[in-house]
């Protein structure tokens, strides 16, 4: 539980990555960085495909990457902002994350990319943005970036 001394996960603490072919497929895949036992289960309850496994409400969620259809039901409701939809398409990486800051992001916006430690790791472009009012003001945004960055980038701010 070293991550509780720092506030971020190191490489060896991350959940297993989805297989490459799943990431390269047409649909994004949910990647959940929620390692701690806390009483929370909306992601599990929101998944219509039984792709999220939990033994009980305190069990950390595990994604069955084969079952995940990338429907984004879980990322809409995650109170911990701990779910990231990952995809690689035509050599470019795409991360979808929850965004709750002003100004709201719009398609085409350029954003700074940050890793789990809050270090700036590059720049990306918003390729899709769910309007905040469509999801009780948690915007979902998809950011295009270098494909190597999709396991790194966990936050964005508007440039």
């Amino acid at each position, binding site marked *: 539980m070293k991550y509780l*001394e720092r*506030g*971020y996960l190191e490489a060896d603490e991350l959940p297993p990555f989805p297989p490459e072919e799943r990431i390269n497929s047409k649909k994004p895949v949910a990647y959940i960085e929620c390692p701690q036992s*806390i009483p929370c*289960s909306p992601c599990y309850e929101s998944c219509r495909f039984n792709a999220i496994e939990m033994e009980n409400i305190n069990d950390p969620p595990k994604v069955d990457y084969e079952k995940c259809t990338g429907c984004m039901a879980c990322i809409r409701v995650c109170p911990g*902002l*701990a779910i990231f939809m990952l995809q690689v398409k035509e050599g470019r990486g795409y991360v979808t994350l929850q965004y*709750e800051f*002003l100004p709201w992001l719009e398609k085409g916006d350029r954003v700074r990319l940050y890793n789990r430690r809050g270090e700036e790791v590059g720049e990306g472009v918003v390729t899709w943005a769910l309007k905040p009012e469509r999801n*009780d003001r948690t915007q979902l945004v998809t950011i295009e970036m270098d494909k190597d960055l999709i396991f790194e980038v966990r936050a964005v701010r508007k440039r």
Partner: protein
Amino acid sequence: MRLESHPIVDFERGKEVTIYFNGKPIKAYEGETVAAALYAAGVRVFSRSFRFHRPRGFFCAIGKCSQCMMEVDGVPNIRTCKVYVRDGMQIRTQNSKPDAENDALAIFDKIIDTVFPHGSHYKKFNKSRKVREFATKQMRKLAGFGNPPKSIPDIETSYEEIETDVAIIGGGPAGLSAAIHAAKYGAKVVLMDENNYLGGQLIKQTHRFFGSARHRAGTRGIRIAQILEEELRQYENVDIRKETKVFGIYGKDVAAVQKDSKLLRVKAKKIVIATGAYERTLIFENNDLPGVYGAGGVQTLMNVYGIKPGNKGLIVGSGNVGLILTYQLMQAGVDVAAIVEAMPRIGGYFVHAAKVRRLGVPIYTRHTIVKAFGEKKVEGAVIAQLDDRWQVIPGSEKEIECDFICVAVGLSPAHELLYHVNAQMKFVPELGGLVPLRTRYNETSVDGVYVAGDVAGIEEATAAIMEGRIAGIHAAITLGYGGDEAKKELEEAVKDLEDFRAGPFGERIVCGLEKCVLEKEVMI
């Protein structure tokens, strides 16, 4: 410093009015408290302290800390954080010459305890009667806090006595839930809350809640407050009293002041105490400087009134409150310099920590705040590393640039009313301090007096809602309402709460609860 826009909250401001602070006009909006309006106008020094004449400012925002007391329209000692602005209101600072900002007696802070250490009012000037009597007179002038009264409040007052089945004190998650479930089965309910809104601390919770879907997980705290209130309003057997401060329980009579003008006496068969908690304070150098706030105070300022607390904050405490507050500050466009945590690990949920860490906020575990510094308000802070015995490691001190400090080091149950009814109490650290013994249905050692929520032990809002449900149903059942259906729901509710607490985060609570189990015959 007023927020014009916010990603989560819409601020609906009332009509613009003018209030006068030490004679100077200040713009304010109806619906704002005097303290909030003054803060928005940049006022930081609200009062001067009793002995040292140190500057004191906005602090708790819930009428507890006494730092914001001023003379309002000629009446002394008004807690300005609990009084709403009115056009033309005259507000003056107290215990200072000429005013709190420029108090000539501030010199006392430098010298008074070198010449007049604590207790010397008893020990000095005793030998000569003349000198003693003269000194006693002078001391009297220096003591005393508020200005002598200059006018009588111009308010139409009244008295009301009501009888009810269940009186519920506190309209936060626990109280709302207790009210809903007692009313659902037919009990007549009076719900009292000191604020002009229901929901208690929920209305500061802009984040989505944890738990399961049936606990409304994934929904923002502010919305949960609305949902609960709407649910409650379905029932006609509920009498909701907002802006009603319960000040005592005398026998089984609950006494309250409604809208600062009515004395209310509620004769109740059952009482649910759901008064919540107070924020703990922390002892460090200059912990009283304006700009050192309780986390809740800042949340009130920012999320209720839409006022920025400052430009750059330091957060002390990495429990969920500290972590969530950090995120909320950033949402309001305020920088957070760092979070310090005395424990070797982050206290709150990892996901809350990760949210702010990835936005660049450093979290210093095994660190503490050593001091705040500044002339009349916080201009910076010093933090330092702690060793295994919680002592500061010399040389590890580090200066942090910030203009405010939020203390988020936990809560203490607001237990006063439990002492009024003479409930058996116990000191249980796992539950945050002095808490009542209770049955599995949340009834205290005093028959018909229940507890729910933080006053029973510091926990999450979700647990508070579940406790309220249990207390509400049990109160209704013991009054003869509900029948088998209610009994069935009661057992389900108890089971539901047990499951909720089954994880590692519930361990501490369960361990604490085991220490205050009340074995008494419970009728259902």
